């Protein structure tokens, strides 16, 4: 037995002993119940002391109390009761449900639990089971449509793709605009998208980096109790600089008292297919000019005499995904234990691509010591993800999707299922450098394995009923190993290529907190104050080696490179020290004022700018309570009403090593030293960013709380942004780091909900609609320029333009007659060949931002059946589809053969006739027309032709479940049993982009989300789940 084991066992014994030790006080016991029977998990506490306990599975509790003391029994969803201890040693309490359920306690910043009614800002949370029901690999995807003002941008790069979340629009020009993710008080590094081995992002149009998945994707949805969405400003101010884009607080499950053994097992089987694909023509085959040609990659050939091949359908298979989850949770006196093990295996629809994930978690919290004054909470989450063959994107030969879609309709992909010939060379048609997708799946391999620990431990001591102190240590750490192998025999490399690398990251947070809270401090005034001190340290390192082309074919070894292997090393490290405080004043429990203040000292800023302070204030007035407490009476239809307001500032610092201009030292291929300049010009005088938020709102509930409305209006101004403005590379730098800009997000959010039928024994129906509208305006940019490019792709650009909305899409338009006096004014001005022309200018074609996001959830229950569905809609905004353009130029798009025909066409427009204009009379062909529209003026042709309305409405999720009634299970060891069926991306009710899902974005970590080009298509998935409790 190792020493470690002995120590652990000893510690566990101690813990157990202290937890079970009894006090020398009079014991009170009893049962908590409601109309239907015993209630577990109710908090039983003695007022004015630190003594507290919870009722067990049978509703029973024991607590020490003296006569005259007051015992308070509370449970979320019920009205609390207070009972004065008399000589009676048994107290049975029947709780009545609180119709308003407004005593709901929620987790806010820094884990501070507060009653929802006291909050001066809008707050929405999502329960864990709602996330689990979505059955998405990446828990972020489960948030789609559930929270107002939250936009989920789901990557489509296979099963381990990353997902981007934005709250209330984009605050920043650079960076990923994502909220801070906090898991049980510990920040989780939610890296995102296409980064290379040393952490640089690469969203190049032709050869973008591979989407390496997001940090949030490592989390197991089954372990989540709830997610609180803090949309910014006052809500997240306490988290400081990193929560400038809001925060999402994930609380994992804690052990709860369970009937039976407390073990539950759940098994899910998922099937995944393509959701929607662009519409293709099926009547013309390989070749050009109406002539067949076996080496052509185009579809302008002869009319097909046989059926066109469904190469997309034939190549992509049905993805199979299964998840096994085993959970044990139980409460042993004062100790709660939650452990879970989950294994996910996703063999995606993309041949060769897979994801495996193993999640282990243990969480123990316990109270001990005299009066249970000590509380400890220890959690370890281990995550292991193994992603194979993340698909390539971009307009290049390694993108299977682009190869398949533009493949001649007369060629069968299944003929190339065996991707190599007898000599080991790639088996494929044609003479280009195009690559057989099956070859890619088998012989161009990449793999990355991440080992990650998310840990926290805290200890809390209650001095008395109003004061406690807590020390908390949290750590997020991971190591990612990745490797890529390309075999010999393809256009990529004659002998093969090899590379490998490793990234490590850790972040430690050490926090000390002192919390004081007292009601009725002075008269009806009460207050609470928390002080915090925190040290955050972060370090990441990267090392990768690339052999390039290999000498001995297919010998994957770094030293087997033709030229010297290239080695890259990276390092980033930073520290932030912080002091912050949260103060709360309430008057008679209906008026609440909350203040926060935080000062950060960041290592990344210059000496004079290192320290920055930012405050927030928020207030909430519960009008309904005010009226009743002051003797008034509410109208019968109004159950609750509250108004709120807040103002906050949040600062933000830099990444590490971005102050001083230095030089790179490297090696030339002969091993001699080189020196060079980094890409970005730094500025030692850079200041911290400042985001100011103002927000007002109200919520109200009607008809015994069966209906409710929550409304918020907000305005954020992100100023002094630290941005990398692009520079002319001949300045010496491609970017310069400056403070600039004022980006304003303003909007409204409305949530309506209702329990339309409410019969717990029979039929019930609840419905909730959330609506949000955000205007993301560029008030000011930099002194240098009124335009900031968010992405530029040849003759398509996505820009932030001063005075306009974030994300304007620019490109060329059709040349038209611009002569108000001409009868042809506004008509297309065609070339002498009768073909459209480009105006040759970059003009605004649209804007990528949605005007409104709407989510509508309905849940029905009848006896043991449950049915729910979510319809969500995005309204307004545009996107440019490079996929559609490529399909048009290639002759595979449906529009290139209207009604299956390729007759000559006469383009409606005019031609110059020397002095004026004359109607066009020159006929052209579909091939010439689309070739002209798609290739003139740049790689993306006449931009106007492929800008689409991004509005779409879809049935996002449909879920049906059945809970076996306890009468059936009565005599078995099974305590609970549930089966469910879930489908995601069920039905695209309305969209406008010829089968390209507006959700398939090109680059997930780019802010130019209005540009799409051969993204992997989105998926539809079905899940079958069985959950058993023992």
């Amino acid at each position: 037995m190792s020493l470690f084991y002995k120590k652990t066992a000893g510690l566990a014994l101690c813990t157990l002993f202290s937890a079970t030790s009894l006090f020398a006080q009079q014991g009170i016991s009893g049962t908590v119940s409601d109309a239907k029977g015993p209630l577990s998990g109710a908090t039983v506490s003695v007022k004015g002391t630190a003594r507290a306990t919870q009722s067990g599975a049978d509703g029973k509790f024991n607590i020490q109390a003296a006569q005259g003391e007051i015992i308070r029994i509370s449970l979320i969803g019920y009205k609390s009761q207070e009972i004065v201890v008399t000589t009676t040693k048994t107290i049975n309490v029947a709780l009545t449900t609180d119709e308003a359920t407004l005593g709901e306690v929620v987790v806010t910043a820094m884990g501070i639990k507060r009653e929802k009614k006291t909050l001066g800002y809008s707050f929405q949370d999502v329960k864990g089971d709602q996330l689990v029901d979505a059955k998405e690999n990446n828990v972020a995807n489960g948030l789609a449509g559930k929270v107002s003002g939250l936009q989920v941008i789901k990557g489509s790069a296979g099963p381990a793709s990353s997902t981007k979340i934005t709250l209330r629009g984009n605050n920043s020009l650079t960076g990923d605009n994502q909220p801070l993710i906090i898991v049980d008080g510990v920040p989780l590094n939610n890296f995102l998208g296409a980064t290379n081995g040393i952490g640089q992002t690469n969203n190049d149009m032709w050869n973008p980096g591979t989407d390496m998945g997001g940090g949030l994707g490592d989390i197991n949805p089954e372990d989540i109790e709830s997610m609180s969405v803090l949309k910014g400003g006052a809500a997240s101010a306490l988290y400081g600089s990193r929560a400038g884009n809001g925060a999402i607080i994930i609380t994992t499950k804690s052990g709860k008292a369970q009937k039976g053994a407390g073990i539950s097992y759940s098994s899910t089987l998922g099937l995944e297919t393509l959701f929607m694909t662009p519409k293709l023509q099926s009547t013309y085959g390989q070749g050009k000019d109406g002539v067949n040609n076996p080496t052509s990659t185009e579809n302008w050939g002869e009319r097909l005499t046989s059926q066109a091949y469904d190469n997309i359908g034939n190549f992509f298979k049905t993805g199979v995904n299964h998840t096994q989850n085993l959970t044990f949770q139980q409460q042993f006196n004062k100790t709660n234990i939650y452990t879970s093990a989950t294994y996910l295996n996703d063999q995606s629809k993309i041949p060769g691509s897979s994801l495996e994930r193993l999640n282990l978690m243990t969480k123990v919290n316990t109270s001990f010591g005299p009066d249970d004054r000590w509380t400890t909470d220890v959690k370890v989450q281990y995550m292991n993800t193994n992603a194979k063959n993340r698909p390539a994107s971009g307009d290049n030969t390694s993108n299977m999707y682009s190869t398949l879609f533009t493949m001649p309709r007369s060629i069968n992909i299944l003929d190339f299922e065996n991707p190599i010939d007898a000599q080991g060379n790639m088996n494929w048609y044609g003479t280009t450098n195009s690559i057989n997708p099956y070859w890619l799946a088998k012989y161009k391999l990449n793999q990355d394995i991440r080992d990650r620990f998310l840990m926290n431990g805290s200890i809390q001591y209650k001095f008395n009923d109003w004061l406690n102190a807590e020390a908390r240590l949290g750590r997020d750490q991971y190591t990612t190993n990745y490797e890529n192998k390309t075999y010999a025999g393809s256009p990529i490399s004659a002998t093969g290529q090899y590379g490998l690398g490793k990234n490590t990251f850790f972040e430690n947070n050490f926090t000390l907190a002192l919390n004081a809270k007292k009601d009725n401090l002075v008269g009806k005034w009460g207050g609470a104050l928390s002080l915090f001190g925190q040290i955050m340290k972060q370090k990441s390192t990267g090392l990768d080696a690339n052999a390039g082309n290999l000498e001995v074919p297919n010998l994957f070894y770094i030293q087997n490179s033709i030229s010297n292997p290239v080695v890259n090393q990276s390092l980033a490290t930073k520290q932030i020290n912080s002091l912050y405080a949260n103060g709360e004043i309430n008057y008679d429990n209906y008026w609440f004022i909350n203040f926060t203040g935080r000062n950060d000292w960041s290592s990344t800023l210059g000496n004079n700018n290192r320290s920055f302070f930012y405050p927030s204030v928020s207030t909430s007035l519960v009008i309904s309570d005010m009226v009743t407490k002051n003797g008034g009476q509410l109208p019968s239809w109004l159950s609750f009403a509250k108004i709120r307001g807040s103002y906050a500032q949040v600062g933000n610092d830099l990444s590490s090593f971005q102050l001083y201009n230095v030089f790179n030292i490297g090696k030339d291929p002969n091993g001699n030293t080189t020196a060079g300049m980094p890409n970005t010009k730094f500025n030692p005088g850079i200041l911290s960013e400042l985001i100011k938020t103002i927000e007002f709102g109200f919520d109200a509930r009607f008809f015994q709380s069966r209906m409710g409305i929550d409304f918020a209006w907000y305005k954020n101004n992100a100023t002094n942004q630290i941005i990398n403005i692009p520079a002319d590379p001949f300045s010496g730098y491609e970017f310069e780091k400056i403070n600039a800009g004022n980006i304003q997000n303003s909007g409204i959010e409305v949530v309506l909900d209702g329990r339309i039928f409410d019969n717990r024994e029979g039929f019930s129906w609840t419905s909730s609609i959330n609506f949000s509208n955000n205007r993301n305006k560029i008030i000011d940019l930099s002194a240098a320029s009124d335009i900031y490019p968010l992405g530029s792709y040849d003759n398509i650009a996505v820009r932030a333009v001063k005075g306009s909305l974030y994300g304007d899409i620019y490109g060329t338009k059709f040349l038209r007659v611009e002569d108000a006096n001409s009868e042809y004014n506004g008509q297309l001005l065609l070339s002498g060949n009768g073909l459209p022309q480009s105006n040759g200018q970059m003009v605004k074609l649209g804007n990528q931002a949605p005007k409104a996001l709407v989510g509508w959830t309905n849940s029905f229950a009848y006896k043991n059946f449950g049915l729910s569905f979510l319809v969500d809609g995005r309204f307004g905004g545009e996107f440019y589809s490079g996929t559609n353009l490529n399909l048009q130029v290639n002759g595979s798009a449906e529009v290139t053969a209207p009604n299956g025909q390729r007759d000559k066409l006469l383009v409606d427009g005019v031609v110059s006739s020397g002095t004026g204009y004359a109607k066009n009379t020159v006929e052209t062909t579909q091939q010439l027309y689309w070739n002209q529209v798609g290739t003139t003026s740049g790689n993306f042709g006449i931009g106007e032709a492929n800008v689409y309305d991004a509005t779409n409405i879809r049935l996002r999720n449909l879920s049906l479940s059945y809970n076996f009634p306890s009468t059936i299970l009565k005599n078995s060891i099974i305590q609970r049993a549930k089966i469910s069926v879930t489908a995601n991306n069920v039905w695209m009710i309305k969209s406008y982009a010829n089968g390209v899902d507006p959700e398939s974005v090109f680059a997930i970590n780019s802010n130019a989300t209005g540009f799409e080009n051969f993204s992997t298509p989105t998926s539809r998935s079905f899940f079958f789940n069985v959950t058993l409790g023992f």
Partner: protein
Amino acid sequence: MKNFKSKIGIAILFGSITFSSCSKFEEINIDPLKANETQVKIEYFFNNSLTGAQQDPNIAERIFVLDWKTAGRQHMTNGLALGTVNDDWSKEYYRYSAEWIKNASKGIQIANDEIKAGSAKDYTNNILQISRIWRAYLISELSDNFGPVPIDYAEGVNPDYKPVKDVYYYLFDELKDAISKIDPNVKIPEDVLKFDRAYGFKYDSWIRYANSMRMRLAMRLSEVDAAKAKAEFEAAATTNKYIATAADNFAVAEKTGWDPLSGVMSREWNAQTLSATLNNLYIGLGGIKSDQLVASDLKSSIKDENYIGKRYSNHFTTQTNDPSAGYWLDGLPNKIDPRAYKAFYIPGDLSNSNYSLYPSWTDDAKTQEEVLVNGSNQIKVNTKYTWNAFSLGDWGAKGTNNRLRSTLVGKVPALSQQFRASTSSRIFFANWESYFLLAEAAVRGWSTGTSAQQAYENGIKASFDYWGVGAFASNYLNSENYNRVGTSVKFTHTTEPGNNHSMNYIDGYTNAPGTVSIKYPVNTLYKNGSVRNDLLTKIITQKFIANLPWLPLESWNDQRRLGLPFFENPAIENALPNLPDLNASNMMTSSIKFFPQRLNYPSSFREASPDKYQQAISLLGGSDKVLTPLWWAKQK
């Protein structure tokens, strides 16, 4: 009271932890993986610049092969030759070029600072001057692609763009001044020489290179600023220190792998087949018989001198002014420039050690049988030991039915393996170019210290030596044989060939023989098409041939400047989206609107520096388009 004390204790604890670590912050923020100004040296920057400019495969394929070789008509590819600019390639080139120029500039700045501070080595100044010479080339390369470019680099601010004229004037001054400031008495230590892979910091070589560069740049202004061109040229030529022997050539050894030293033409999927432009110059030029040039088993494939080939009018376009259009030569030409068979392999000549089997993942190079499709009929064509070049452009259905053209590799001559395997040396400036510049200058009546004929013949000999065909030089130089565009080699032979000549052909479908009058093309860009065999045409023809394959940009430059040599118009069976002015009624004439004139500025520059972009456009004197001619180019 006890609680109060605890609070104080916690407060102190907070405070001490928080502030004690602040003093370390300055340390945390210094990146240990980067160097500061005192740790870097000019030779490191110079090495980075010179090495980078050799072009790794990413940039080499884009700019050298697909832009320069295409615009310079060194191979048969449509793309830029049809006016289609690829913004991504330009974007990459802009980024790379900036990298090369800024590294040279930063080295110069660092050296200047050291010299000022007195911390410089004695040889630092000489490396500084060499860096300036090198940078002058890089700036000229940039300007010749886009037009107006900056002259101040790596100064941390978006630079002002200057008119092409100012850029050229600046480069003359830079080169002259740098040469004058090299102190040949200072020795550069042995262990530093490795940082110059071109010349090992040999002063004499760098000065010769600088003077040759002055001649090249001066000649560029011949049509627009003749007085300046003459003055600068003469100043350089009279030093007599220019690249005159092969040993002086600016050449950098290539290396296999994937890095800046990998061969610029090494990407296997670039077919790099013989262009019609080049083939029309090669055939008949110099009068050397194929019989003397090819191995014995190929000799039976040599055709008669007045045989143009098989006519396949349904499979070969004639919608172009390419004089050879419409015919397939089912053998080898009777007479050809001897360099042709060295530069390009003959399809099926597998015993040639320079036969390229690229792309290696297909058998295309080894396959010498293809078909011309005629409905359900297929006409077999054997390409073994044949010599053809297809005109570029859009061949419409004729091209789609012509499978030779769809495959190209193994069907027509393509670039010799010696230039593709990353085992050559990339030439930036060779002695023959100095001679052709001197010849042109002498023809213009400038004082060069040599005669036009002498320089012309020296240039040809230098090129023949490079290709290992020196034995044919004297016969070649005396040849009055016309090539397909009506030009001969002999310097004193300026007799015009007439407007056409009669040739025999065989109808490919019926095998019926016939006779056809083949036109010598009318190159309306040069002297309005009135001459085909004057001195300048001869010189530029030879320069064009000698430039292959290393200096495609210079070939493009000469054609933009003079309209020489003759570039055939792209075929227009279908209208070309990016050459809107070319149509069936004007396709027999040449116009600057039918050839690319420059690269558009990349979208990255447009987006990153909108003000300077506007400045650059206004200095360009036309819109930011591929057909807008540069200052020194022909304007119509």
